């Protein structure tokens, strides 16, 4: 167990706990804040794994923009507070399915990889921003353009959707 692994495990625990908290919090704002925590820990995991650019982009976009969006959304829709108003009747079914998915995934992981042993231990490759940029703008330029198109469409769409209907 190396230091990286320790760091990872700590971050993983925090992230997992806060993820649980996100989906079970009674207060929506608390949930959003827990989401921040979770996303931050995920960003930390990226750092541990040597993906600097992705980590900062994660924090920047997710925590900085998306969670803010969530908060705005919650505010505009006057989200209520309380367990019964937040969770529906299907809690148990959702738990079941969630557990099922988790079990299935774990089973596949364990089937494909050796969990106990060190067969799959690796040293994370440090990736530089320059690598990311050159890969993106050379090999993956097409998806990049497509993504920008998508963002444009989303932008326009969001504006159109959220516009108040004027009496025409």
């Amino acid at each position, binding site marked *: 167990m190396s230091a990286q692994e320790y760091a990872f495990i700590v971050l993983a625990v925090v992230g997992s706990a806060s993820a649980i908290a996100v989906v079970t919090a009674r207060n929506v704002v608390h949930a959003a804040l827990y989401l921040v925590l979770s996303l931050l820990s995920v960003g930390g995991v990226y750092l541990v794994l040597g993906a600097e650019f992705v980590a900062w982009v994660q924090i920047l976009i997710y925590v900085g923009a998306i969670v803010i969006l969530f908060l705005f959304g919650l505010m505009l829709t006057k989200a209520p507070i309380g367990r019964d108003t937040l969770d*529906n009747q299907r809690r148990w*079914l*959702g738990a079941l*399915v969630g557990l*099922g*998915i988790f079990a*299935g995934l774990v089973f*596949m992981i364990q089937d494909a990889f050796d969990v106990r042993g060190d067969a799959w231990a690796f040293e994370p490759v440090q990736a530089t921003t320059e690598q990311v940029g050159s890969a993106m703008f050379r090999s993956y330029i097409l998806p990049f353009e497509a993504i920008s198109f998508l963002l444009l469409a989303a932008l326009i769409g969001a504006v159109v959707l959220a516009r108040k209907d004027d009496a025409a």
Partner: protein
Amino acid sequence: MVAETADAAASGIIRYTWVIALLPFISAALILFFGKRVPGKGSGFGILAVGAGFVMSLAVLWHFVQGGGIYASSVSWFSVGSFEIELGQYVDGLTAVMLVVVTAVSLCVHVYSLGYMHGDVRFTWFYVVLSLFTGAMLNVVIADNLIQLLVGWEIMGVCSYLLIGHWYEEKENSDAAIKAFLTTRVGDVPFMFGIFALIFATGFTTSNIHEISELVGGPGVSASLVSAAALLLFGGTIGKSAQFPLHVWLPDAMAGPTPVSALIHAATMVAAGVYLVGRMYQVFLAADPMVLQVVGIVGGITMFGAALLALVQFDIKKVLAYSTISQLAYMVILMSVGEAGRNAAFFHLFTHAFFKALLFLGAGSVIHAVHSNDMRDMGGLRRTMPVTFWTFVIGSAALAGLPPLAGFWSKDELLVAASEGHEVVFTLLLVAAVITAFYTTRMVLMTFFGELRSDAHPHESPASMTGPLVALAGATLAVGFLGAGPAGAVFFDWVFLEHPEAVELVPWVAGLSIAAAVLGVVVGWFVYRRYRDPDPTLEMGGFSRILVNKYYLDDVYLKGIVHPIRDTVSAGVYWFNQHVLDGVVNGAARVTRRAASAIGWFDRTVIDGAVNGAGQVTRGFSGVLRFIQTGNVQWYAVALFVGVIALTIVFVRIA
């Protein structure tokens, strides 16, 4: 297949003689269906049919008057094995005469009933049965084979029952009708057996009267069987013509309306028995002579017994009824004497029809005026009802046998035929003539002379009733001459195509018969000149008692036959019907009900259960399936994830 005799070249009306018998049947059907809606309530159809029949009958008779020949034709009705049953007509002089008689009397009765039955509760039905009866009698007369004759015979029996019981609201009327029907039935059974015996005796090939008459007496035909058949046939005559011991129904049958009595019990139905004997005379001749002796004895007993019974009757119709029985017995006795007797009997049948019908209709007129049948309630009616009086007198004179009326000539024939070697019969006939004249005079005097003994206000009857009276009186006056010796006795030429031997007027016989009739009239005059109360005939002690109780014969029948059968056989049959037959029927009904309720249970539980179950299953399925589309996105997500898990497992396992 139409078979015709050698005289088939006959043309014109005689080929269609059968139409005369068909017309009343058609009119009966018409009256039945349309009678109530037609003005005249159906009487028009009946009168038209019978009137047309009468005219046609006259035409047929004219054929024979001119010396025409016999005509016969038939069609096949159905066959039993090799035995064929036909529908046909056999038209000879006798048929023609009978046709005229039946249609004439029936026509008079139809017209008379317009007045007599006016306002009756079942006027239309009356005419239906009247037409039906006329049709049946005409059928009997023209029938060329025994089966057809039997059919008409039986229909007449039924119609007689219906007509006698016309006013069935009174129990005694329906009782009389049943008595008439059953008593004639008792005679019909031997009649049927007689027919079968005859058919069998002649080799089981034909029921045609003409053919049987020719075969009988030939070789190969068992004489004893023929004798037995003759006796059995006579049984039918005893029943239908009210001879001893089956005469008991005729007096009671007077409960029916008077036109019915006139038609049925004077002219037609009762005559059918005598007609039968005459038609089948070859059979009687071929049989053992003992048979004819039996016939004579029966006739003799009946004649005397009935004549005596007429003496103690107060109901005018009952007097006429017993008189009819007595006259029929006259004819029966004549039949037993031989062929000459047969001819004379037919002549008497012919004339008797007219004057007896006249007497009955006249009695009906009197009854209608006084509203009572009892002669003790009458009296002095000659002043208030002249037409009825004079026509009645004419009829009575004919009945008593006074010349020159019809009764005298036919009685004369009787006596002449009997005088040839049958002294006993001759004497009996004379004595009976005296008694006949006596009770006839009694009847006339009590009804029309003296003073009215009741509160009724009699007046002459309407024209529809007096018209037929006059017509019949005219006929009575005229027809006598048809058989009279001095006038040529053309009757026998027409009827039998032969001129019988003893038809001349034998003076001493004629003188005796006149003397007998006059004696009876004179004695009656003296006894009943003044009304006598109580009637002298009732004052003869034990003799009167016997007569009033009708020789106790009715009691014998009732206690000896009816009651035992009713209390044992009928009761047994009734019990059987109620418990066994009805039990079976009710039991079947119960079983059916149980089965039905079981099937109902089955239907409700199993079938409806299946149907409802199908519905429930569908509901169950739909209840499950509807979750596929709840509209809830998260539910869809659940389904999606579950599917993912499943597919994962599948792929991992397979791969």
